[in-house]
């Protein structure tokens, strides 16, 4: 070992390090302890740790599970779980379009609106930009079962046009972003309206909690696909890593949804009443 690669630490510091790093990163020579600074493994580990610090500043839409990331059985099972919700949404769309042929065009524009909303960069608390899911607001505006059908179409476009998400993971992504998120958002919004909680607070709760549910469900899906020693450990890992980006986004999205609903309530009451929000 060349001397230039070795740094001599004070003994008290070494005893602290001793407990926390593995034995291979330092060695003893003539009774004194030395730490290897240029150790490749240490470098690798420090790089990995610093990545965790860097990632919140990246501009990401991390909630989409990437193409090919899940095993094929998981992809199929998540797809099957989505089917009843989609059929429910399909039936309700068919009923409404049969009543009024204008609904189809209204829904198309709603879908396009959700797509733009999810590709929008929102200024986030950490200083970086991040994409909202947009599904919370969509669910409150258009209803959750319709949102699930619009959601799967939007997710298909996102994978084809923006390379966010994928075709094999479409089922899993649909379940987390277009089914779990919207249904929880809508449920919480309706519940808090019934409990006479003010309009803005219930919109905030609906949008923010819906966003968080999306993130928890995605972590759960990933943890099921990649169990560590057991599922709960890996669930904690995935949630811990996603929390860095998702908590600020959830809060930002909640605030934005409240402000948007405020403006919409003031300016286009007719449309909202048509959509049965208020």
């Amino acid at each position, binding site marked *: 070992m060349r001397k230039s690669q070795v740094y001599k630490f004070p003994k008290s510091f070494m005893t602290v390090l001793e*407990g*926390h790093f*593995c034995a291979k990163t330092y060695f003893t020579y003539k009774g004194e302890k030395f730490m290897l600074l240029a150790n490749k*493994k240490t470098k*690798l*580990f420090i790089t*990995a740790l610093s*990545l965790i610090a860097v*990632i919140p500043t990246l501009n*990401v839409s991390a909630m989409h*599970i*990437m*193409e*090919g*990331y899940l*095993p*094929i059985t998981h992809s199929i099972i998540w797809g099957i779980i989505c089917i009843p919700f989609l059929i429910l949404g*399909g039936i309700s*769309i*068919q009923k409404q379009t049969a009543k009024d*042929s204008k609904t*189809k*065009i*209204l*829904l*198309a*524009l*709603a*879908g*396009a*609106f959700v797509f*733009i*909303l999810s590709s*929008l960069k929102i*200024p986030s608390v950490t200083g970086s930009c991040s994409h909202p899911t947009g599904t919370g607001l969509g669910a409150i505006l258009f209803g959750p079962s319709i949102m699930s059908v619009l959601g799967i*179409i*939007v997710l298909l*476009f996102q*994978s*084809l*046009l*923006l*390379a*966010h998400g994928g075709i*094999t993971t479409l089922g899993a992504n649909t379940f987390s972003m277009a089914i779990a998120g919207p249904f929880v958002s809508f449920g919480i919004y309706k519940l808090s309206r019934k409990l006479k909680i003010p309009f803005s607070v219930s919109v905030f709760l609906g949008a923010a909690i819906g966003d968080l549910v999306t993130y928890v469900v995605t972590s759960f899906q*990933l943890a099921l696909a*990649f169990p*560590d*020693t057991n599922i709960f*450990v890996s669930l904690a890992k*995935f949630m811990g*890593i*996603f929390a860095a980006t998702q908590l600020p986004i959830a809060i930002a999205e909640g605030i*934005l949804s409240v*402000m*948007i609903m405020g*403006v*919409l309530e003031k*300016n*286009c009451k007719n449309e909202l009443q048509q959509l049965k929000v208020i």
Partner: protein
Amino acid sequence: MIIDKLAYNSRLSKTAPTEKVIFAITSMIICIISNSILVSFITILAMLFIIIHIGKTNIKTVFNLMTVPLFFLIFGCMAIIISISTDKSEMILYIKLGKIFLGVTKYSIFSVAITFTKSLGAVSCMYFLSLTTPVNDIFSLLRKSIIPDFIVEIAELIYRYIFVLLDVCEKIHLSQDSRLGYVNLKTGYRSTVLLVSNLFIRSMNQAEKTFTALSARGYDGSINLLSEKHKHNKPFILFGLTYIFGVTALTVFLKAGIK
């Protein structure tokens, strides 16, 4: 939306979409099932070959697009590579936190390498599909499938209006930005709110206008579009068939070899 433009400009855009979709999805499934680094690398190379050599898409653009999924992959792989356990015997490298150990095992490095390449392989298959097939062709396939027609119709309309609304959105954003609308966080929020609520009002108005315009032209609740005529691309079919047979054989061979 650069992918959409590239898809229309590809040499393979006029090829029959059925062949392309079947090819993309089969190779994607083989890549995922095979679970091997070798097959994934072959898939990536083959897809890049088709996109760049047969489809004549710009090589730089394709490589830029390949970096899009990297963010998610870094995120996801970080969680897989670091394992948490109370037993440090298998770990190559670890930190001690109280009674538990955070570290990297041989197995986790191996599984990350496989997941990473497998996912990139599948992504390149998806890129093949989205860089050579215009979305309208995919709709014509979806109409033939079990998906109800009214949903495909809504999807077609959504596709059309994404571009209309995106145009509006970009114009509003540009004019807000040039008036220092995003100078700090507070103004940024205000501008975003104005942008989104205006977009909502515009999209509802657009729906009204579109419906009026369509009814004036005899709209009865369904829009039927003619699909384009497609050709067969011989080099693509030849390459695709040999590729799929080759990779399937390799996968079967690898699986048999492991057992």
